[in-house]
Each structure stands twice: as C-alpha cells, then as structure tokens.
C-alpha cells in the first residue's frame, strides 16, 4: 500500500527538473570550467582524442553509478566516515571498469592504464558525491552523475581536439593537414603537446565560455 502511495507522488522519470540536471553541467555548471573539478586528468589525457573519449566514457559511468550507490546508501552512512565509504565504492567501480576495458579494448586500456586508476582520485567524483548524491534521491543523483560526466567529457574532447590538431596535425589519429603545407614550411607546434599548454587551452575555453554567458563572470 505504502509503495503505491509513494509511486503516485513520484515525479515522472524525465521531469523538467531532471532534464535540467542533465543539461546544466554542459554549460552553466560545467564540472571543469565552472566547478573546477577533475583538472588533473583533463591535463594528462588530452594529448590525443581517442584516450580522451575513452576516459570521458569511463568517468561518466563511474560517476553515475557511484552517485546511484552512495545516494541509495546516504541515510545509513555515518557522516564521520563518509569519505572512506565513498572511496571504497568508487575504488570498487574503478576496478570493474578497469577489468572491462582490459577484457574488451586491451590496447586502449594499456594506453590508459595509469589514468583509469587515477579516476579514483578524480575530484569530480568526490565533488558530486559530497555536494549532490549525499543529499538527493538515487534517480536524480544518477542523472546528475551522467550529466557531469558528459560535461567533463565535452571539455576533454575540445581540449584534445586542439592539442592533437595543432600539436601533431592529426584528428582522431588521422593526419588532416596536407603534405603540401609542410613543404611550404608549416610546422606542428611541439609546445601544444607539453602539459602547460593544456592549462592555457582550458584558460582560453573559460574565456570564450564566460564572454558568451555573462552570469558566470567573476567580479
């Protein structure tokens, strides 16, 4: 009986509020450029597009399911030991993702091995778990995790696109700059491959984003 009552009060699966959770992280609440979370991996995996995309997918999956699990457990976790519980859940999920990648896409997983492990210390996870999943119901938390994962992936792909294109003249591993250009004296910018340029690229992305959306500007 009581279950039926709850079901009646429930919002529809994709209410406006839930859709907003999915849409906001893409721009207004982007995890990388607005919430400043998950910068370390954004710098490390963005030299090429392919690892960046696999990384973005893995982070999305781990964030979504970690949010789901933590949100389902949120009333039983004593707040004093919540960090350890959260990390245990995240570490377990990361180990699963790592094993799946090893089983199905072995060469990509070999390229990513260190970074997949570092998902555990990706601040997006802890940030969203602390700020959202600990205080909300499982379904919105799950959507929030997916939204933030996609917002993170979007920035990764943009940064990786520019670094791969300007740094090695390639797009997703294929050379796109015609040979003639090199004969005319065009050179790949080796500086783009070095980590400092990832920082500056993200800085420029923030610049562009904030000049388009005025409400994000800081005084």
């Amino acid at each position, binding site marked *: 009986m009581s279950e039926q009552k709850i079901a009646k009060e429930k919002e529809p699966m994709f209410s406006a509020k839930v859709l907003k959770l999915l849409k906001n992280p893409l721009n207004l609440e982007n995890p990388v450029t607005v919430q400043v979370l998950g*910068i370390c991996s954004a710098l490390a995996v963005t030299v090429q597009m392919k690892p960046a995309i696999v990384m973005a997918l893995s982070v999305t999956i781990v964030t979504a399911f970690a949010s789901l699990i933590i949100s389902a457990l949120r009333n039983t976790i004593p707040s*004093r030991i919540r960090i*350890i519980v959260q990390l245990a859940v995240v*570490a377990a999920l990361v180990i699963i993702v790592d094993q799946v990648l090893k089983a199905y896409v072995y060469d990509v997983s070999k390229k990513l091995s260190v970074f997949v492990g570092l998902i*555990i210390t990706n601040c997006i996870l802890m940030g969203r778990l602390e700020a959202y999943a600990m205080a909300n119901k499982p379904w919105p938390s799950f959507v929030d995790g997916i939204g933030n994962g996609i917002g993170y992936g979007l920035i990764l792909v943009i940064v990786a696109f520019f670094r791969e294109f300007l740094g090695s003249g390639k797009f997703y591993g294929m050379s796109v700059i015609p040979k003639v250009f090199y004969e005319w004296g065009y050179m790949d910018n080796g500086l783009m491959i070095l980590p400092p340029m990832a920082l*500056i690229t*993200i*800085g420029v992305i923030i610049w562009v984003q*904030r000049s388009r959306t005025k409400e994000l500007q800081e005084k």
Partner: protein
Amino acid sequence: MENLFNLFVRSIFIDNMIFAYFLGMCSYLAVSKTVKTSVGLGAAVIFVLLVTAPVNWLIDHYLLRAGAMAWISPELADLDLSYLSFIIFIAVIAAIVQLVEMVVEKFSPSLYNALGIFLPLIAVNCAILGVALFVQEREYTTISEVTVYAVGSGVGWFLAIATLAAIREKITYSNIPKPLRGLGISFILTGLMAIAFMSFMGIKI
C-alpha cells in the same frame, strides 16, 4: 645526509608536484584566492603527506609487495599482494584525512569554514595518492628517504599554491578582460608558471 638534502631540494623544485606532474590541481586552483586560506591548505597537505607516505611505505614494504611477508613465516614468501596497493593506499589516506578534518574543525573553525568542501577533497588530492605511488614506483629503500621525499613534495605544493595566491591577490588591481577574471586567468598564470618551472628539469643534482 647529503643524499637526503639533494632529494629534498629535488622534490621541491625539479619534481614539483604541480608544475612537473600536474597533481592536485583541483584544490590548487579553487582555494588559491587568498594567501591565508592557501597557506592553511598547503600546511594541511604537508601534514597529510608527512603521515600518509611513511605509513603507506611501511604497508607496502612489509605486507604488499612480492615476498614482503617472508618475515611472518617462510610459507608466505611467494605471496604477492601488490594488486591491492591502490585500494589500501586510498583507504589509509582517507582515514588520515578524516582525522585531520576533525582536528581542524575542533581547533580552527574559521579555517574549517574557509576550506569548505576542499578539506574532504584532500583525500582525493591526486598529489597525496601520487606521492604514495611514486614512492612505490621509485623503490626508496629507507623510511627516512620516503619521509624526506614526502615532505619535499608537500613543501613544493605549498610553495606553488602560496605563489599563485599571492599573484592572484595582486592581480585583483589589474584590468583583466572581464570574462577572464578569476578562474580563467589563474589557468593561464599556472600555465606560464609551469613553463618557467620546466627550466628546472634539466638540472641534475
């Protein structure tokens, strides 16, 4: 002794956690608004590193690595638990961070409020786990080496965040394009500082 001093200097300047490895960037960028809070966070990072790195090294050395358990009994000599190192390191770090959080909340509520969400985030500060993994990877042999390396890395991180905070305090008086204010300019500043720090990389001590 000389060796330890070299290790200390190298871990501060050449192997700087922020400028050479880009570890611990999230809290680095978000907390560096004023010198006072960033000094507090930097000190917390040094303290957490000082405690966690030796503890993790001891666990790795006497329990996890291949053949490490031979001191318990010869039968355990061929046991290799190193696949567990990741989850054990993070558990140790999380426990110690929780401890630090309680202590700070008790003794300095203003610092606790200023640090906000970033105190629990020290647990996932990549620099802390990074140091534990680097110690494992580089196979330091004595606990004094591990401690010196951990403190050096912490001091390097402290230095980086204090410097950025000082620059950001100064820069509030400059006329930066509006969309670039705050976060944007700190990214670009860090990039420029990192390029400057790359010049240390060639130095051999």
